[in-house]
């Protein structure tokens, strides 16, 4: 059909009033996709705040147990290292938030059949998953900021809170964990029962956050380890982002991108295998 014929027919429709002119579908761009995914995350965050509040309360409860219990047992030794503990705990809550929200979210999407629907769309699931990751990180920053504020008040600790530095370093540090979340989500797609066990991995983040990066430099390439060391320097010693050696920043970015990309590859491979085995969405 020629453009003229199409135009003529569309004109007829408009005159008929069957299909008004404003109803002409326009293609969605990545901007529209980002808006849709982020808006959905925002709606669920504000509409169902119980999850976020519950997470904050549980995190603070554990911290209170750690802080007051530790002070009883270790006394001054704990008070001397409290800054490091607060920063480490802050990073741990960020990591757990990013990891579990991504891996659980993928599990839920599979169960609801919505992951399958994303696969059969022009965009695919990849950009949606990455945008969700961004939303989870933002959300986790908000809840962890509340936890940090309460920790600082309770312990009377003072830390350097330069927003750009803290957000950049902590954000890049937990990007690697986001990658682990994608990988765990992918494994859950293939092996449904393993998913719950993978949640235990978040306790391993404590070891990564406190990895001895000065004594064992190779541990810097593990997720979180290098970023944790940099966040300690930024928040405890007041080092600003631009004051870090370029090599440190480069490694931080490389680890973040590497694990995110690796995690996404695992997810991609796992969903492809699930499609081959016919178990995608097969709960």
């Amino acid at each position, binding site marked *: 059909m020629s453009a003229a014929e*199409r135009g003529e027919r569309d004109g007829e429709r408009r005159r008929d009033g069957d299909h008004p002119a404003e109803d002409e579908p326009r*293609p969605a761009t990545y901007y*529209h996709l980002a808006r849709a995914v982020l808006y959905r995350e925002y709606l669920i965050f504000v509409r169902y705040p119980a999850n976020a509040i519950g997470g904050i309360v549980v995190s603070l409860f554990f911290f209170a147990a750690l802080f007051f219990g530790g002070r009883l047992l270790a006394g001054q030794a704990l008070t001397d290292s409290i800054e490091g503990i607060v920063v480490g705990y802050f990073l741990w809550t960020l990591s757990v938030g990013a990891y579990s929200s991504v891996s659980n979210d993928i599990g839920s999407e599979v169960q*609801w059949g919505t992951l399958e629907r994303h696969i*059969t769309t*022009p965009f695919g699931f990849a950009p949606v998953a990455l945008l969700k990751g961004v939303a989870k990180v933002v959300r986790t920053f908000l809840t962890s900021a509340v936890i940090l504020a309460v920790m600082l008040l309770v312990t009377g600790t003072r830390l350097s809170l330069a927003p750009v530095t803290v957000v950049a370093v902590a954000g890049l540090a937990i990007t690697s964990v986001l990658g682990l979340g994608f990988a765990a989500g992918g494994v859950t797609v293939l092996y449904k029962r393993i998913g719950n066990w993978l949640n235990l991995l978040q306790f391993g983040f404590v070891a990564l956050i406190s990895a001895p990066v000065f004594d064992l430099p190779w541990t810097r390439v593990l997720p979180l380890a290098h970023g944790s060391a940099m966040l300690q320097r930024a928040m405890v010693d007041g080092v600003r982002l631009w004051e870090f050696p370029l090599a440190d920043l480069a490694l931080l970015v490389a680890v973040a991108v590497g694990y995110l990309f690796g995690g996404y590859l695992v997810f991609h491979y796992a969903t492809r295998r699930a499609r081959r085995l016919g178990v995608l969405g097969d709960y």
Partner: protein
Amino acid sequence: MARSAASERGGPRERDASERDNSEHDASEHDASERDGSRRADPAESPPAALEIDGVSKRFGDGDESVLAVDDVTLTVDRGSVVGLLGPNGAGKTTLIKCALGIVLPDAGSVRVFGTDVGDGRRAAYADVDAMLEGARNDYWRLTVRENLRYFATISGVDPDSVASRHDRLLDRLDLADKADTPVRDLSRGMKQKVSLASVLAGGAELVFLDEPTLGLDVESARTLRAELRRLAAEEGLTIVVSSHDMTTIEAVCDRVVMMANGRIVADDTVEALLGGADRDVVRVASPDLDDAVVAGLRERFEVVGFDPDARPPAVEVVAGGDRLYDLTDALREAGVTPAAVRTLQPDLEDVFLDRTGTAPGGESR
């Protein structure tokens, strides 16, 4: 941008006329080659079919325990047609749909959607395709009805603002307008199912797969949904593939039926042709005058398919379609039989399915 691929093929508006043309062909032009699924649209003469499945096979598992879920299936679905996939649980309907959607990767064969090979450029191929899959929520229960429509329109590649009035029409049509701003989780099961359907149609998908759309619905909800499906198919010119083991749904909604058993297609024709070919133009006559001797006399002249001497009154079932009915009444008069009740037994798809497979569509295939 994937949507541009859809536009190159001719977007939703451009395809309307050709779809209607094709849908008219679809119901009337089922020759033998069409029935065995070997139809091929000639791209030089007409736009490609909505769906072309060619020699698709899928086996799950390995060794002795493996199951051949889909066995060398070839099927073409013309634009604007409503095709029903009928078969018992385990017949391969869902696997075939998932293969067509790329959710399950076939071991062999190819799938073309609106002429685009799924294997070549999957995302472009699925620009105008969506599906409502069995047993899944398919949408987000924590979002409202309208939010779901906007979200799924976007991921289908359509700016939701540009189809807002279409969404209003869709909500009106599905009787969901009052619930537009209610979270889906607060709706009844029947309404949730309708939201699922609305979200599938929200992005202007032209090829829609509905896998057991009435499963788990009460009688009234199922009836409403069937009526809506019929109306949407007619008014929007959609191509719909409905899978179900429920013949009422298939019979009410579809103009062509593909019957599956053990992963293979066992029949593929219009509903009318299948029912016409069921060879079940049976008349049931009940009368106290019927006995073995009378029935033996009838057997000499007619095909008697059943006799129940213990019924009150006894009843005989005779194949007597068209003019043969006059012969039957004459024969009954001659035998001194006064009918107490006469009833034609309408064949339904279940009879056809039984004839072809020996299995009821509601049963288990394997």
